[in-house]
């Protein structure tokens, strides 16, 4: 059964001494809004982590395949072998009739979690080869301006033989000492109807948001932790409130009111949710 309610969520995560999302335009420095100096994490960065988490946890469960994969979480060798044996490339480009195209789309939705939740573009020409998923993320933005720190590091080895006398090479690493990020998400019940995004899928999505950073540790990321997940559930499939009015109910303050000093940990922040006078919307704090 597909979800019957519209949802919005506010999700907080923080980073300590790490780079949550590098900017390819700025030599992999943490992404920043140039005007406000607030840190950014793109929607696609978070969706990547959700995909990785689902793949990690539900690899063998039917219907929870992931279409857009990353090598690091993939048991590639097995699958490569399988692929070599069974893939028969077809010459035909695209199903001409719409019914066939729809069948393909439905099949992809049924089998792939990421297609069902985030959508996917499949082929061109026939419009129905495009799936718009119910789950939509905006960019994550840090609460306060971030101050990235660039660290120089050394390695006691060299890659090339000709550099042998150098004995060591140097590298750079950019980190955010501390940053709390906030992201808004939307889940449309009506689009879920079209892709078959179910209550079970929703639970897995919440689970991914709660646990995905636990399975994404690396040298670059530092310590990233999911801190809060506030879910707004509308009674009506179309919704009972404007999204922005719900988001405004989640406020973040500095505990001692002191914003002159950069925050050092999550303890410096207080997140509150105002649930007064909400009609038709229930609030749940999953973290």
């Amino acid at each position, binding site marked *: 059964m597909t979800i019957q309610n519209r949802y919005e969520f506010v999700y907080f995560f923080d980073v300590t001494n790490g780079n949550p999302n590098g900017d390819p*335009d700025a030599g992999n420095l943490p992404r920043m809004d140039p005007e406000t100096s607030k840190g950014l994490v793109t929607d696609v960065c978070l969706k990547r982590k959700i995909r990785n988490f689902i793949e990690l946890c539900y690899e063998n469960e039917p219907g929870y395949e992931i279409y*857009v994969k990353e090598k690091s979480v993939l048991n590639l060798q097995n699958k490569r072998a399988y*692929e070599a044996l069974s*893939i028969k490339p077809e010459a035909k480009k695209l199903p001409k009739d719409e019914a066939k195209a729809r*069948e*393909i789309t439905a099949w992809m939705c049924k089998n792939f979690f990421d297609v069902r939740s985030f959508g*996917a573009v499949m082929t061109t020409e026939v419009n129905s080869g495009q799936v718009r998923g119910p789950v939509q993320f905006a960019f994550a933005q840090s609460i306060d301006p971030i101050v990235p720190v660039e660290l120089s590091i050394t390695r006691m080895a060299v890659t090339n033989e000709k550099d042998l006398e150098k004995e060591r090479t140097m590298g750079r690493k950019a980190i955010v000492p501390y940053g709390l990020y906030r992201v808004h998400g939307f889940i449309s019940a009506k689009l879920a109807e079209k892709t078959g995004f179910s209550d079970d899928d929703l639970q897995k999505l919440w689970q991914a948001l709660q646990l995905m950073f636990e399975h994404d540790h690396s040298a670059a990321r530092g310590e990233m932790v999911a801190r809060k997940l506030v879910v707004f559930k509308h009674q009506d499939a*179309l919704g009972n409130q*404007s999204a922005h009015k719900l988001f405004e109910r989640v406020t973040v303050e500095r505990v001692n009111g002191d914003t002159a000093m950069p925050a050092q940990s999550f303890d410096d922040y207080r997140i509150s949710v105002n649930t007064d006078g909400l009609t038709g919307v229930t609030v749940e704090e999953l973290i």
Partner: protein
Amino acid sequence: MKNKVRLHIWGDYACFTRPEMKVERVSYDVITPSAARGILSAIHWKPAINWVIDKIYVLKPIQFESIRRNELGGKLPASKVSGAMKRKSVEGLYTIIEEDRQQRAATVLKNVAYVIEAHIVMTDKAGEGDNLTKHLEMFKRRAMKGQCFQQPCMGVREFPAEFAFIDEGEALPQCLLAENDRQRDLGWMLHDIDFQHKNTPHFFRAKMQDGSITVPPFMGEEVVS
């Protein structure tokens, strides 16, 4: 009831991609009629109706920002899916992001707000029970309650659009454009795509006068395809 709705929309970011610069996306200076139609349709739409955009009010200064992301280069071929369907197995049906990665920059708008002024026309799919008032009222009811079919977006889905209905007689939100920015020739801009005729794009000469852009009729003389 007059056949006219006004919707206030705003968002932190927007990307109304210029078709000539779509690989490394560059946004138009303002929202296109096509994107505005999409926003209205995200709140209410039926095959019986079509939204026609009449006017776009630009409420905030036009500012850009650049964002570069790792994107996927390829699309999923239908033949690969039908092959997997025949085999009744999803093994091997995936794409590896590292092998098909494209790094693309997007020059997007920042901190945008508009008012869309539009009306409804009935299409030939309209049944007996369809009339303008019904659909206008449905739209109004939904927009006032913050309801939508899906959260509308500012050109791309990572940039959600917030919206508020502006009722008849209600004043428009304040325009924060500098006085000398209110008259501006925005050049040729996408009007919309003609889906009836092989998805032909139609363009018009967008001119901002006193902070608003009057959108010519889709099939009008000012519009070229």
